[in-house]
């Protein structure tokens, strides 16, 4: 069976069937007065340039620098995140889950693609794909391996399946030897995947802080 990524899009210099269908639908919806074309452009621009994982990285970096903010984030993530200006659609009810030396958190939506949009933007393709949704609840260490992350068995894995309207943000561990960095520099170490739990923050200076079990 060919994967969904390769299903029907063959664009040999002309528009694909799907492209034509989408255009037809947009035309009809506009003619019937259901949509404002300028709103479509605004929506796309918002998720391409304004709402994305750099928002979440700011939240994480603040929590690393400010223990009072970290406490509020873990107690009422929706309010703490809103205090930095991020709120709304697909993040109405936020919960932050903290990685520790004993526990590593992973977030999934096995039933569809629920994801905390205000802090992470739109979900990546793999997050919405069958392999991730099927496997991460049963074989989380195998999935982490697909991302090059290998955690020792002493670290317990905690998988959060987002089956209702609660959205989860992983608060990764602050990398070692990052004491000298500013909040802004720390935010640059926070990857999208580290806030889903499929990755770890970058090390100061570049590489991911993945600790590989011997």
């Amino acid at each position, binding site marked *: 069976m060919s994967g969904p990524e390769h299903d029907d899009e063959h664009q040999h210099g002309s528009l694909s069937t799907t492209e034509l269908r989408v255009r037809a639908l947009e035309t*009809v919806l506009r003619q019937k007065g259901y949509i404002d074309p300028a709103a479509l452009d605004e929506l796309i621009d918002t998720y391409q340039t304004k709402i994305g994982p750099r928002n979440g990285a700011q939240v994480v970096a603040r929590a690393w620098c400010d223990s009072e903010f970290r406490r509020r984030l873990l107690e009422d993530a929706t309010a703490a995140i809103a205090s930095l200006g991020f709120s709304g659609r697909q993040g109405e009810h936020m919960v932050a889950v903290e990685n520790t030396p004993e526990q590593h958190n992973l977030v999934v939506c096995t039933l*569809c693609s629920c994801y905390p949009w205000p802090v992470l933007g739109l979900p990546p393709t793999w997050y919405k794909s069958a392999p991730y949704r099927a496997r991460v609840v049963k074989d989380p260490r195998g999935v982490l391996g697909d991302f090059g992350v290998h955690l020792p068995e002493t670290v317990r894995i905690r998988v959060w399946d987002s089956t209702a309207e609660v959205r989860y943000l992983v608060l990764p561990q602050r990398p070692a030897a990052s004491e000298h960095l500013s909040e802004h520099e720390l935010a640059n170490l926070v990857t999208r995947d580290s806030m889903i739990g499929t990755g770890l923050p970058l090390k100061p200076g570049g590489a991911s802080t993945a600790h590989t079990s011997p």
Partner: protein
Amino acid sequence: MNQGQSEPASATGYVSNADLGGQDGHGTVHPEPEGELFHAAWEPRVLALTLAMGATGLWNIDTNRAARETLPNYRELSYYRIWLEGLTKLLLQTGAVQADEISHSRAVHAAVATRSVLHAGQVAAVLARGSPTSRPSSSPARYALGQWVRTRSAAPRHHTRLPAYARGKRGIIERVHGAHVFADTNAQGLGEQPQWLYTVAFDEQELWGETTPRQHATVSVDAWEPYLEPA
């Protein structure tokens, strides 16, 4: 075989093709860099059309999920194709658009009444507001933190948010989220009927049996009170 496996969903007359948790044979995950959001020019248009039509109030998020998960070819479609097919299905079901209009790429029939049209100037405020699902509770929570519960084992004949892998399993209440719009009734047009919502955590052996290699993992779902009974 999983112990306590419930009856297959197909026996109930409602089949979700989106309930993938715990299935084998789907292969490996292919990570992608942070900036890669779309893979065809039509994908952002489908995203925007879906969000804009969501604002008309012709359907809710739960009817939308039900429309998508019951697409017969769900598993063969890329994600934004699922959105396109789901959107088309809802437009036809609600009569907002008719099939001849799509095939002719032209409005032919009168528009149905909608709650509102999302205009460009409203986008930022509408997104920032979102659609909270928390509601006042009409009764006290039946379960408390640390209490053991068992999830219901029967597959309902309608949209639900209890994944098959977590049916009929014993878990512990780990968080209490207050009362929220109940997806099961909201998806069927039966109203919000708010119910208490809990995070229920399961030991991996409870979910997958003792023959599956141990991962040193705990898995939780968010479950509305009607999904649960005392254990």
